[in-house]
């Protein structure tokens, strides 16, 4: 996966090999979310992103987003019923178990779930699409240590399947654990060198 975004932040130029995890760190407001949103083609931008050699601009945007799934720090919900977002099937149950979510969550109204439960449900919702690339914005910000490790195990599993991950994280321990590649963002530009 090769990216060339460019707008409020950037220009950026980087590759993330299939099955690898690029961790992006940087202070709040450095442009990390802007970068992820551009990669998901959610904001206007110059430049292009390619997935397995196929350019985003060359395919309908919704097909791109089904393969390059962006998980925002605060996931959105279009109704108050969890089942309107995620069907209750074997795939969902399996992913929920891996994320440490109790099965009852499916029947709860969204507003009653904790922030951490919502974050993990959004991950389940995204992983159901079997994306080729995952753009994760602070996926574990509301999770405790043990649950964070469960989510990281899920991330490693999808990486084994060839999915590339771009992870924005404030947690340096998590960055150490997950990163195959690391970049630091400041004022809309990468600083420092590749590790």
């Amino acid at each position: 996966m090769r990216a060339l975004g460019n707008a409020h932040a950037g220009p950026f130029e980087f590759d993330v090999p299939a099955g690898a995890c690029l961790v992006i760190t940087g202070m709040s407001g450095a442009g990390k979310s802007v970068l992820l949103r551009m990669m998901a083609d959610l904001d206007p931008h110059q430049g292009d992103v390619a997935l397995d050699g196929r350019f985003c601009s060359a395919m309908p945007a919704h097909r791109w987003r089904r393969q390059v799934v962006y998980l925002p720090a605060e996931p959105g919900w279009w109704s108050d019923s969890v089942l309107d977002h995620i069907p209750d099937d074997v795939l969902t149950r399996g992913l929920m178990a891996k994320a440490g979510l109790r099965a009852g969550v499916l029947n709860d109204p969204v507003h009653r779930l904790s922030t951490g439960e919502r974050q993990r449900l959004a991950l389940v919702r995204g992983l159901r699409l079997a994306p080729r690339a995952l753009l994760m914005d602070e996926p574990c910000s509301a999770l405790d240590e043990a649950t964070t490790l469960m989510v990281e195990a899920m991330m490693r599993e999808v990486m084994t399947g060839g999915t590339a991950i771009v992870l924005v994280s404030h947690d340096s321990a998590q960055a150490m654990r997950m990163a195959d590649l690391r970049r630091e963002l400041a004022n809309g530009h990468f600083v420092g060198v590749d590790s």
Partner: protein
Amino acid sequence: MTPILLNTGDMLMAAGLIVGCAALSLVLSLGIHRTLVVAAIRMAVQLVLTGSVLLFVFGRSSVWLTLLVLAFMFSAATFEVGSRQVARLTPAWHFGIGGFSTMTGTIIVVLVGLLTALQPHPWYQARTAIPMTGLLLGNVMNATSLSMNTLLSMVSRERAAIEARLILGATRAEAMNSLIRQSIRTALIPTLNQMAAAGVITLPGIMTGQILAGMDPFEASKYQIVLMSLIVSGNMIGATLSAVLTSARLSDARGRLRLDHLAR
């Protein structure tokens, strides 16, 4: 068919009622007496002017004069449809979409009415065309502005929900579908209420007018039915067009939500 004509005494009585309401507002310190009096004067001037202009236009039976009056009405509607909305598009698009939807909805149903049910001779006869357009235009304008207003205020509030759908691979039509439908439904509620209440709770305006003007109540009810159907259809067209166009303007060809197209 002898219409009951009103004399000076009747008009004074109307003025007396307004003064009475204003006095009541003073006594109850509602603070609306000023607005009330201004609105009443404005209404009286507008209506008397309209009456005089129509009297003049009906006397001429000129197509161009009729078209001029209609053009004026459409411009006023285009301005009004976009007013009183908190969230708005940039002005050209805001008034463009509002005006276009209102006019399209109105023109279609006016033509349907003039060419089928009413069939005046000639079909563009001012005495029929102008009041018909006025009646329908006012209704379609309401529906269109309600529809736009609902969509515009919901889109900014529901940003996260819309993007959640986009993120999961929905097209912009799929992501905004439920908002569009909700806007159209909201826009049609007043019309639906009006239809449900027609004849039972209220005697609708057209029917009342026809009866007061001396028409047989049964015939008047048929008039009301046809006009009400035209109103609903016009409202539906106007509300749907404005919701679809507004949602298209708030997204782009890459299926992104473009709240930057809202006026700041």
